């Protein structure tokens, strides 16, 4: 008490003490700092998510390890739901805030809503711990133990849980919410790092095949850091060109700057490397299959769906707000990238034997499709991109949710922590090899049906969200004059249909693998995964059968503020 009273006692304005003391009233008046105006309502979605993450950290700090799980799940889900409510409440907003660092407009809000819904579903997958009978925790008991060591087994046996994944994931979601909203390149860069760093970590925390997981995390981290450096160099060059990092200032500078175009072109090229890396476009796609395969599957689902939304959001904003004046320069490059992405994605996907790798190449392929929307540079292109991102995101989360449920069975395995006590057959890791999926339709028709829906959606078969989305994208691209791209897209779709349908055929028309008597088994998840799966299937079909409402929403949302 006395300490603080004396703090007050030494307050300024003491007339007997003109020389010393702390600033007099006069200097406060003459030299005030005006704080920037911050429209907190517009930032609420991000603030809520970051707040929830911080609460999660406090839970980690103060609750004993065994009692952290439910509070973490509750806080994370509540945070995402409340943030979504704020996004809905902000509809129709069009303003920039926080010293113009963030612009909240239709595109931002649509993408933020999409990201939050995807994050909600992914959180359900992340929170999956299985029923009492089977432990489906996708995350390692203790990240610090050496794979295969006694410590790992002991940590499993002790029932440790890495509940830190919840705050980490929320941090990433917060970064994703900001990335498409960032109105200057510096904010963009920071948001990119905030969304990436937790993902690098989460990739390395798989419970099974931990070496693969750690390798994936390492690759993702190194390449990601490299691409971030490219992005940052691009920002520096653009700053040198425009004298500002604000997108609208760059747009103005492009039409009026006295500097040579080399600077701005080099800057944009480096910037594009960073962004195209995040969306996984060829030739910056090399990390995708390894990382998608090695990461814990719920994280793969989250990454494949939500990161893509956020990164395409940022790409849209930068190209549409900052670089319309350079349209004739960046469009040809993106044409090439889109063609390469579609072809490489489609062709390499055919050769894959691992379901997660196949889905990874499918993600690359879809990034190519979405680039069509970006290239069209029309409002229709924006709205079709928004719609496709949502449709693709839901289907991806659903597909990876199915992957988490098809497991290897280990006969006579002594793998502790799996809880398969009754027999000598225990549930192992995910059976990601395609051969394990043979005959799935006979043993688990419902699950196979779900997966079929997602495969059909990816292939763009009518009555699924994929068809509507692709139709909208291709129409927009033709409107934008990119019809050759559409032809390539259609060819790639045809090739892609081959490997999507191949999986369906494998599931329904092949004999199940029963060689060593230990074929794959389908586990019964807790309601978490069931809910996620149901919602994604429902949305995938709903967006295919009755897409009009969502298309209208995307149309209405296709506006930017500067």
């Amino acid at each position, binding site marked *: 008490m006395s300490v603080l009273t004396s703090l007050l006692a030494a307050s300024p304005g003491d007339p007997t003490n003109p020389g010393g003391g702390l600033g007099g009233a006069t200097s406060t008046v003459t030299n005030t*700092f*005006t*704080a*920037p105006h*911050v429209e907190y309502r517009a*930032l609420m979605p991000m603030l809520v998510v*970051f707040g929830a*993450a*911080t609460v999660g*950290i406090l839970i*980690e700090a103060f609750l004993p*390890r065994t009692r952290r799980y439910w509070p973490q799940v509750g806080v994370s889900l509540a945070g995402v739901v409340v943030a979504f409510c704020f996004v809905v409440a902000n509809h129709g907003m069009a303003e920039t805030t*926080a*010293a113009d*660092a*963030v612009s909240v407009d239709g595109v931002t809000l649509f993408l933020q809503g999409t990201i939050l819904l995807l994050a909600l579903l992914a959180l359900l997958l992340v929170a999956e711990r299985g029923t009492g009978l089977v432990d489906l925790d996708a995350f390692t008991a*203790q*990240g*610090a*133990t050496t794979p295969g*060591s*006694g*410590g790992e*087994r*002991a*940590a499993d046996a*002790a029932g*440790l849980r*890495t509940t*830190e994944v919840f*705050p*980490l994931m929320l*941090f*990433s979601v*917060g970064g994703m919410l*900001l990335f498409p909203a960032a109105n200057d390149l*510096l*904010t963009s*860069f*920071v*948001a990119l*790092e*905030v969304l990436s*760093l*937790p993902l*690098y*970590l989460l990739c*390395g*925390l798989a419970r099974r095949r931990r070496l693969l997981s750690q390798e994936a995390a390492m690759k993702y981290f190194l390449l990601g850091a490299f691409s971030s450096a490219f992005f940052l*160099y691009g920002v520096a*060059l653009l700053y*040198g*060109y425009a004298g500002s990092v604000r997108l609208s200032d760059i747009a103005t500078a492009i039409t009026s700057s*006295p*500097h*040579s175009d*080399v*600077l701005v072109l*080099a*800057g944009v090229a480096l910037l594009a490397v960073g962004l195209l890396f995040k969306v996984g476009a060829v030739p910056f796609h090399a990390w995708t299959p390894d990382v998608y395969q090695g990461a814990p599957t719920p994280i793969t689902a989250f990454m494949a769906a939500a990161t893509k939304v956020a990164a395409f959001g940022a790409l849209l904003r930068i190209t549409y707000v900052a670089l319309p004046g350079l349209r004739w320069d960046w469009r040809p490059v993106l044409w090439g990238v889109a063609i390469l992405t579609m072809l490489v994605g489609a062709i390499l996907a055919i050769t894959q034997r691992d379901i997660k790798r196949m889905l990874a190449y499918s993600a690359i392929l879809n990034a190519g499709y979405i680039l069509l929307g970006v290239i069209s540079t029309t409002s229709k292109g924006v709205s079709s991109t928004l719609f496709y991102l949502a449709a693709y995101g839901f289907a991806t989360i659903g597909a990876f949710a199915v992957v988490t449920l098809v497991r290897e069975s280990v006969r006579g395995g002594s793998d502790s922590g799996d809880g398969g006590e009754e027999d000598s057959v225990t549930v192992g890791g995910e059976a990601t090899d395609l051969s394990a999926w043979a005959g799935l339709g006979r043993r688990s028709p419902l699950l196979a049906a779900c997966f079929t829906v997602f495969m059909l959606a990816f292939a763009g078969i009518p009555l699924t969200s994929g068809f509507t989305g692709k139709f909208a994208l291709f129409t927009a691209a033709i409107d934008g004059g990119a019809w050759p791209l559409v032809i390539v897209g259609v060819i790639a779709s045809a090739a892609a249909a081959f490997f999507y349908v191949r999986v369906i055929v494998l599931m329904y028309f092949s004999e199940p693998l029963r060689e060593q008597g230990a074929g794959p088994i389908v586990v019964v998840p807790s309601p978490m995964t069931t809910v996620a799966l149901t919602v994604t299937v429902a949305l995938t079909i709903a967006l295919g059968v009755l897409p009009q409402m969502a298309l209208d929403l995307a149309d209405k949302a296709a506006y930017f503020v500067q």
Partner: protein
Amino acid sequence: MTTTRALGSTTGVEITFILIGLLTFGAAVLTVTVRNLVHAALWLVVALGGLAGCYLLLAAEFVAWVQVLIYVGAVAVLLLFGLMLTRAPIGRTTELDSGNRWAAAVVGLATAGVLVSVIGDAVRTTWFDPRQAVVNGTAKAVGTSLFRYWVLPFELLSVLLLAALVGAIVLSRRDVSDDVDAAEGTPRAQATEAEA
């Protein structure tokens, strides 16, 4: 600030700047060419310190001292720590010669060329007078612009650091030690005792 004043004429500042720049450049080159990893780290320290000197001459004194404090005082020390606490070769070694070094040199030179030319182009017409720019480099100016114009990215960086902190704990914290089965099965300590 005092440095620029003490140097007197503008040309003095320019000459010093060039000398420090050359020192930084030389140290940077040595960083990637010396055969001893610890020496490389030390040359890196010199390069980072040289950069701080450049900042100082450009009247960005706050950034300069922070550069010394953070990069020289913390980052590079941690780098040395990493070298000394792990099995990295801390003596003279040929392992550092990568087979790709010529390719790396070409890429490095090309990058440098692009950067020098485009940045040179960008600031070719800009005249910078350190003495007039002193006010831009003070802690007050940096603080004002940080909290007035860059408040959101700045606060977000704290979020990023928090996430990194949590991540570091996740990756390194052990509630169960790695040699736990050694303790259960054949404890190493007992074995050595038995030998003795």
